């Protein structure tokens, strides 16, 4: 594993992946947008508001995915002191926070016409809001110490403790009564959603995921550069 701890090796790997992830982002989002807005059918109950699903669901998945990635990277950083793991966790947080924010806002814009309310304090919505606060708390904690390494360590512990929220979000629609509909894609017995909607949903998800990979790699590159800057400044002072 420490093979990848070498920043030079990582930078080479990132530069090899980036053109592909950028191309995948552009292609999947362009195809997904046209599919979602034009070719996919309106829902027989929800009409055209169902088109918000093509943003809302991938954003929710990516919010959870980015948090999981952040928690795993934080665990690796705490246990093995892997230098790139800290940078990866730090890079993942703002991206995941944006996806979670978009999930909440698009959900609200979908809830108003369909449920008659922008917001309800039920299990799914509240646990998703807590996810956003966990992201914000994580980012605030990183910068709350004079010593960046101590901030990073405290934030990593918060990321791990907060991970308990991820399964709660996933199963909240099964455990509690809620306005939010239950899982319809990832469930026992296969997806309960028509292929005419499932395919554009998956294409948009690929687009969101490719964009996440692109941003993550660029942000880790920036963090590597930042670490080098700090090291050089230290040698300038002491050397």
């Amino acid at each position, binding site marked *: 594993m420490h093979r990848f701890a070498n920043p030079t090796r990582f930078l080479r790997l990132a530069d090899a992946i980036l053109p592909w992830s950028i191309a995948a982002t552009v292609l999947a989002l362009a195809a997904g947008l046209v599919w979602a807005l034009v070719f996919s059918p309106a829902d027989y109950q929800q009409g055209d508001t169902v088109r918000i699903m093509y943003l809302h669901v991938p954003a929710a998945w990516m919010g959870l995915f980015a948090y999981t990635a952040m928690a795993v990277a934080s665990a690796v950083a705490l246990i093995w002191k892997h230098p790139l793991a800290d940078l990866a966790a730090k890079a993942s947080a703002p991206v995941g926070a944006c996806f979670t924010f*978009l999930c909440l806002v698009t959900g609200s814009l979908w809830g108003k016409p369909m449920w008659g309310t922008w917001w309800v304090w039920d299990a799914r919505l509240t646990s998703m809001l807590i996810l956003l606060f966990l992201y914000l708390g994580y980012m605030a904690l990183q910068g709350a110490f004079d010593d960046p390494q101590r901030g990073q360590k405290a934030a990593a512990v918060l990321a791990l403790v907060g991970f308990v929220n991820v399964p709660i979000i996933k199963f909240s629609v099964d455990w509690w009564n809620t306005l939010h509909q239950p899982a319809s894609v990832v469930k026992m017995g296969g997806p309960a959603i028509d292929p005419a909607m499932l395919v554009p949903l998956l294409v948009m998800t690929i687009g969101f995921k490719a964009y996440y990979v692109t941003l993550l790699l*660029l942000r880790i590159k920036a963090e590597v550069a930042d670490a080098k800057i700090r090291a050089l400044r230290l040698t300038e002072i002491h050397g």
Partner: protein
Amino acid sequence: MNGFLSMGGYGGYVWPAYALTFLVLAALGVATVSGLRRKQKTLELLQSSVRSARRRRDDAPASGPGETA
């Protein structure tokens, strides 16, 4: 075309959702790229100043007995 824009009467919900998603994701992308460029530039400046400082030190004639460059 009008039917497409009105989204069956739900255009007021569908279009803001798409516009906001695009804006947030685009802003995040711009912030990410500009942050990376800024740090790379700072790093290059710092590396070249460290190199030239080292060269000056190495080129300077050894002063004082017993000192090696």
